[in-house]
C-alpha cells in the first residue's frame, strides 16, 4: 500500500496531501459532527407525501427548519477542528469525577433507604397519575418490563440471541382468547383468564422447547435468524388461519381477571398492582436463579462453550432451560395483556416488537435485572412522552439510531451487571469472546 506517502515523506501530490489531511482526528470528528447535524435535521424535519416525495428532504434541509442545525454544525465543526485544548479541558473534570467515583462503596443503610423510597414510590405514585398515564404504565411499561425480564434470561444470562420472542407472547395471548371462547374454535371448557395462566405458560413453554430443541445447537447468528423466522411464521399463521384465529380481525371481548371474589376492571390501577407483584416475584426468583449453579453454568456457556462442555456442562440442556424460561415468561405476559386490553390481533405481535424488547434489554444492560427493568420502563415511557413532539411513525428512526449509538458508546447498557462490564472490557482488550457469539476475526484494539 502507500506506506511511503504516510511515513512523513513530502506529499508528492495534492491528492495525497488531501488524503492525509482527511485522516487526521480533528477533521474526522468535524466531518462526523456535521454529518450528524444534517442527519438530525432530516430526522426531525417534515415527512414526504404521496404527491410530493421530495418535500420531506426539501423541508428538512432547505427550509428554515434546518437553520439551527446548520448553525450548530458550523460551531461544532470549528470546535472540533481548532478547539482541541478547550474540549480536553472541559472533559477533564468529568473524567476525574468518574475516576474518583469508581472505588466508592455505597454503605448498606443507604441502599436500604433507597429501596424503601423506591417501594413507596412504586406503591403510591401511580395513584396520582391521570388515567391515560396509568394505562400507559400498565399496558406498555408494565408489560414491557415483564417481557424484558424474560428475554433477559435468554439473551442476558444465557447469551442466546432470540429475535422471535414475541411469538411466545402471541401464543400466551391467543391461548387466553381460546379458553375464554373468543375464537372461532371452541374450547372444551371455559375459564377466566386468571386461571388460564398455567395453560398459557405451558403452551408457550412447549413452543419454546419445540423451537429450541433442534435450533439451539446452531451458531449464534444462525439462531437469531431462525428465531426471527419462527416469530414471523407464528404471526403469518395467525393472519391466515381465519377459522382458527379469526385472521386479521383477531379476538375481542376477552374478559378481565376475576378470581377469589375480586374482579379486575378497565381501571388500570388494580392491574398495576397485580403486575407489580408478579414482576417483584419474578425478579426475586430470577435473581436467585442467576446466582445459583444454573446461572453459573449459563455464564460458562456464554464465556466459552467449548470449555463449558469440557467441564461437564450439558450445554444444550442449559440453553434449552433458558429458552423455555424466557418463553414461559413471555406467554405469561401474553395472558395479562390479553385480559387487560381485551382484544388482540396479529398486528399486536410484529417482528418490530421482538426487536423493541431486545432493544430494551440491551439498552438497559443485558444480564442485569435492574438494568433491563429500567431500560424497558424508559423505552416504554419515552414514545408516550414524546407523543406531542414526534410523529408516532418516526419512533423507530430514533430507536434504530439509539441502538447504534448505544453499541458504540455504551455497549454495556444503562445499569450493567458487573460481569457484563467485565466481559466487554476483556473482549476489547482481546481476551476471550465476551459472550457465546465471540468476536469478529481481525478486530483488534
Amino acid at each position: 500500500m502507500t506506506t511511503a506517502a504516510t511515513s512523513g515523506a513530502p506529499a508528492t501530490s495534492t491528492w495525497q496531501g488531501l488524503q492525509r489531511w482527511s485522516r487526521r482526528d480533528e477533521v474526522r470528528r468535524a466531518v462526523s459532527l456535521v454529518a450528524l447535524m444534517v442527519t438530525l435535521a432530516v430526522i426531525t424535519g417534515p415527512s414526504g407525501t404521496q404527491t410530493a416525495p421530495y418535500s420531506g428532504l426539501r423541508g428538512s434541509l432547505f427550509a428554515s427548519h434546518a437553520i439551527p442545525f446548520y448553525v450548530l454544525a458550523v460551531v461544532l465543526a470549528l470546535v472540533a477542528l481548532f478547539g482541541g485544548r478547550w474540549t480536553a479541558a472541559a472533559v477533564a473534570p468529568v473524567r476525574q469525577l468518574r475516576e474518583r467515583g469508581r472505588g466508592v462503596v455505597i454503605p448498606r443503610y443507604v441502599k436500604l433507604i433507597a429501596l424503601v423510597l423506591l417501594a413507596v414510590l412504586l406503591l403510591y405514585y401511580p395513584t396520582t397519575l391521570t388515567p391515560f398515564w396509568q394505562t400507559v404504565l400498565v399496558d406498555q411499561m408494565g408489560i414491557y418490563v415483564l417481557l424484558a425480564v424474560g428475554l433477559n434470561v435468554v439473551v442476558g444470562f444465557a447469551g442466546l440471541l432470540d429475535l422471535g420472542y414475541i411469538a411466545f407472547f402471541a401464543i400466551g395471548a391467543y391461548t387466553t382468547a381460546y379458553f375464554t371462547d373468543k375464537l372461532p374454535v371452541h374450547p372444551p371448557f371455559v375459564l377466566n383468564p386468571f386461571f388460564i395462566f398455567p395453560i398459557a405458560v405451558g403452551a408457550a413453554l412447549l413452543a419454546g422447547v419445540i423451537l429450541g430443541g433442534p435450533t439451539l445447537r446452531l451458531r449464534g447468528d444462525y439462531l437469531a435468524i431462525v428465531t426471527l423466522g419462527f416469530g414471523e411464521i407464528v404471526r403469518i399463521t395467525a393472519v391466515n388461519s381465519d377459522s382458527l384465529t379469526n385472521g386479521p380481525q383477531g379476538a375481542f371481548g376477552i374478559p378481565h381477571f376475576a378470581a377469589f371474589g375480586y374482579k379486575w376492571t378497565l381501571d388500570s390501577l388494580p392491574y398495576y398492582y397485580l403486575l407489580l407483584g408478579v414482576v417483584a416475584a419474578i425478579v426475586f426468583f430470577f435473581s436467585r436463579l442467576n446466582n445459583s449453579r444454573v446461572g453459573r453454568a449459563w455464564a460458562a456457556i456464554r464465556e466459552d462453550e467449548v470449555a463449558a462442555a469440557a467441564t461437564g456442562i450439558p450445554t444444550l440442556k442449559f440453553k434449552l432451560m433458558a429458552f423455555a424460561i424466557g418463553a414461559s415468561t413471555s406467554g405469561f405476559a401474553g395472558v395479562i395483556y390479553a385480559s387487560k386490553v381485551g382484544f388482540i390481533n396479529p398486528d399486536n405481535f410484529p417482528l418490530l416488537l421482538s426487536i423493541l424488547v431486545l432493544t430494551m434489554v440491551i439498552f438497559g444492560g443485558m444480564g442485569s435485572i435492574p438494568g433491563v427493568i429500567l431500560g424497558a420502563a424508559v423505552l416504554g415511557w419515552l414514545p408516550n412522552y414524546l407523543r406531542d413532539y414526534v410523529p408516532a411513525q418516526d419512533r423507530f428512526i430514533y430507536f434504530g439510531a439509539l441502538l447504534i449509538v448505544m453499541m458504540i458508546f455504551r455497549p454495556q447498557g444503562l445499569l450493567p451487571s458487573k460481569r457484563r462490564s467485565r466481559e466487554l472490557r476483556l473482549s476489547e482488550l482481546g481476551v476471550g469472546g465476551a459472550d457465546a457469539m465471540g468476536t469478529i476475526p481481525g478486530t483488534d484494539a
Partner: protein
Amino acid sequence: MTTATATDAVLEVSDVTLRFGGLTSLDSVSLRHERGEVLAVIGPNGAGKTSLFNCLTGVYHPQEGTVTFRPEGGRDTAVLGRKPFQVNKLGIARTFQNIRLFNALTAVENVKIGVESHQRSGPIGAMLGLPRNRREERDSDDEAFRLLEFVGLSKRANEVSASLPYGDQRRLEIARALGTRPKLLLLDEPAAGTNPAEKRQLEVLIRDIAATGVSVLLIEHDMKLVMAVAANVVVLNFGQVIAAGTPQEIQRDPKVVEAYLGGDEAAGEA
C-alpha cells in the same frame, strides 16, 4: 511397548486414525495408560498430540480405532462417539493448550462450575431456595475452596480469573478440571510459557494429583518436567507412535533422537 501382563489399564487406545480430508493427523495410534501412573505424550510440534486429546475428549471423531476407558470398579466404556460433556461425565477431564478459563468469572466461580457439574439441583429448586439446593451450594463452595488450596490458589479465590498471573491461570484450569472428579486427567502442555519456579511447582502438583489416585495423561515439551513426573512416555511423530517406554529408554531411542534432531537439544529445553 511395555508387555502388558496383569497390570490394570485405565485407558486403552487402539489403532486410532484421524483424517481431515487428505491429511492424516493420527495414524493407527495405540497406547496403554496404567492406572494411577503419569503417562507423558511427547513429540515435535504438529505430531498430533492435541489432536489425540481432542479425540479422547469427544471434540474430534476419528475415522478408525477404539478408545476404552476403565474406571475403577466400573465397566469398560467406549469413549469414541460421545459428546465432550458426556466424556467428562465418564470421568475424563482436560485442560487446554492455550488456557480456556471463564475469563470474566472469579477463580472460585471457575472451580465451582467444575464441581457443580456433578450436582443435580435444577432451576426450580434454585428459584425456590429448596434445602437441597442450599446444601449443594454450600458443598460446592467448600469443595471449590478445598481444590483452590490444593493447587495453591486459596489466596486469590475471589480474583477475576483473567487478571491472574499466567502460571496461576494454568493451575486454576487444573483445579477446575479436578472439580469434575475425574479418574483420568488430560493436561495439555501445562508448563508452556511458565517460568522455572512455576514448573517446579507444577511437578509437585502433578505428583500430588497422581497420589490422590487420579491417572494423569500429560502432553509436554519440557523434558525436565517429563523426566521428573512421568513413569512412562509415548512419542508421537507425524501422527504415529514411534516409541514408548520409560523416560530413560526413550531418551536413548535413536528414532526419538532423530525426530527431535538431537536429543540434547530437547533435553536442554527446560
